[in-house]
């Protein structure tokens, strides 16, 4: 017997039964989970901001998408970063400053700054949900020191379950990688001291649009 069948057989032996019949399997496939969600009565946008900031993330709000490049430029100047960024193709249409060096490829080892569009914000924990693809390459989320994320307020949902519904509604199905990000990278592996910027970004800055 091949290992797969042997393991499944061993599982069934342990459960003292044979293969489940089709009726039972269809019932399991049709099962809809109904788990308790922690009560939340705060405005989702306000909660998202509060939670994200509590995890050492930063947030600024702009009126519309057109204001994003100027906000990123101001952020870059504040941190004294060169005028270069890895920008997700989902933000290609924005009017980036002409003197900027911008690319939409994967982030390279020396990448300092990236700008990505978020698929959703999750108010429950103040988390960003990023969907991998040319519009938002995964390396942009992890390689640069500074990660700027553009999030439209309309994309902020209350719970994780609502974010999964957003994923399920995508015509192209599940992204290769879905990254839920709650602030900058951190570690507490040396004497329980929390240190930001372990392997991923040292800073995560959200530009909230609308």
């Amino acid at each position, binding site marked *: 017997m091949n*290992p797969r069948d*042997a*393991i*499944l057989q*061993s*599982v069934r*032996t*342990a*459960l003292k039964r044979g*293969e*489940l019949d089709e009726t039972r399997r269809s019932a*399991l496939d049709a*099962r809809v*989970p109904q*788990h*308790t*969600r*922690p*009560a939340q009565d705060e405005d989702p946008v306000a909660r998202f901001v509060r939670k994200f900031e509590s995890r050492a993330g930063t947030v600024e709000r702009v009126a519309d998408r057109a204001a994003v490049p100027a906000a990123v430029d101001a952020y870059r100047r504040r941190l004294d970063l060169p005028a270069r960024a890895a920008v997700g193709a989902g933000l290609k249409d924005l009017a980036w400053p002409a003197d900027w060096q911008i690319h939409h*490829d*994967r982030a390279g*080892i020396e990448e300092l700054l990236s700008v990505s569009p978020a698929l959703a914000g999750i108010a429950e924990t103040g*988390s960003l949900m990023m969907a*991998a*693809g040319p519009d938002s*390459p*995964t*390396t942009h*989320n*992890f*390689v640069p020191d500074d990660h700027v994320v553009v999030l439209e307020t309309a994309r902020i949902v209350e*719970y*994780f*379950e609502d974010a*999964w519904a957003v*994923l399920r509604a995508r015509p192209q199905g*599940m*992204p*290769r*990688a*879905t*990254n*839920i*990000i709650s*602030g*900058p*990278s*951190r*570690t*507490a*592996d*040396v*004497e*329980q001291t929390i*240190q930001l*910027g*372990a*392997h*991923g*970004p040292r800073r995560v800055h959200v530009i909230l649009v609308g």
Partner: protein
Amino acid sequence: MEIRSKEFKERAVFAIHDASLQQALGKAGYGFVGKRALQVAELPEFEQLREEAKNLKDHILDHLDHYLERYEQAVVAAGGRVHWARDAEEARRIILDICQRVNAKTVTKGKSMVSEEIDLNEALIEHGMEVVETDLGEYIIQLAHEPPSHIIAPAVHKTKDQVSDLFEKAHGGPRKTEVPELVDEARRVLRDKYFRADVGITGGNFLVAETGSSVIVTNEGNGDLTQTLARVHIVTSGIERVVPTLDDATLFLRLLARSATGQETETYTTISTGPRRADDVDGPEEYHVVLVDNGRSKMLAGRFRDMLRCIRCGACMNHCPVYGAVGGHAYGWVYPGPMGSVLTPLIKGLDVAYDLPNACTLNGRCQSVCPVKIPLPELLRELRHLQHQQQLSPALQRRGLKAWRYFATRPKLYHAAEQVAVRVLSALARNGRIRRLPLAGAWTDARDLPAPAGRTFLELWQGKRGQP
């Protein structure tokens, strides 16, 4: 790793006298326990979630074959591959084959306890590959050539000074002494490895049948760099980690971070579904999942099924007084603390891990914090019972128990013997304490035995009843 649980007693003695270890354990225990308590206090639904998580795990285990098959179908539909390994040897073989086929020279790893369980690193290194642990804690202990001492914080037994020494030796000077400098140095060294890696191996906190995804939960981002930058991503996971849907995974996610590190959420939750797509600019070209049984399907059969609910949060060890005193290495294998004291004998054998179920005071703190309500003290007692049945316990203990049973089942004789014992002990006492007790030297060497009051409980009780 080679199992050394047989040396538990010796290793525990060394641990108690290791000043650095005691310093490190003191800091860690307090932090984990306090942070978790704060999170639990802030979530009124916590107890409700625990109950639901227990029930959900039981539902999954009752239908494990179904969910595994559905999961496999979904992985394949997303362009990934699923491999099944009955034991550690098969799992190593599968992973080694993949690495050799793609001509891997550098293999990066996110934290994976299953990979420790199957001795993966040794096998890859033996075949000429460079294996780099990228979780900071795992990286530290890899430099120290030590196994992890905690499933969440593998280097929790190391002090900052010891990390400074290890880094100076591995990276050259000047010696860094502050945490930010140490973390920065590891960041710089490991960056290069991520970008050079041929294969990236991670664990899987959850496997989602609905979407064919593996989920990892981390704080550092090392797991993500590992799996995104390598050409090939391999996930290693136990068969019990499958969950039906993303909504089901959410129930566990709400409990995991709070129980493990005392956070509302970890920094990164990553859902991986298959390899790089046609229009992707990054991501691995191949995506493999190795489903490891290694004793789990057998555990499903009997009284230890509850153990398969474990989501590997580490709360049980953080709250264990024995773990807090001796640290993880004394346990001698991958999984320490209460959960390890159940798993190790079941995976490696009741005899080689004899001391582990016995190194427990049955105080029950582990069970009271377990997010999936595993009755750990009951399982440990059950293991002691099995050891007794299989005559693995020491002969003296067995004879003692037999003698005790002889008296305990004969009440009159028992009370008579008790009266004698109480009087003898009272006579031995000085100032209400017994300094040395024959046959119990090991106990009285370290502390005094309080002397009995002079009469037995029954005598006192009967005296009281005699009064009006």
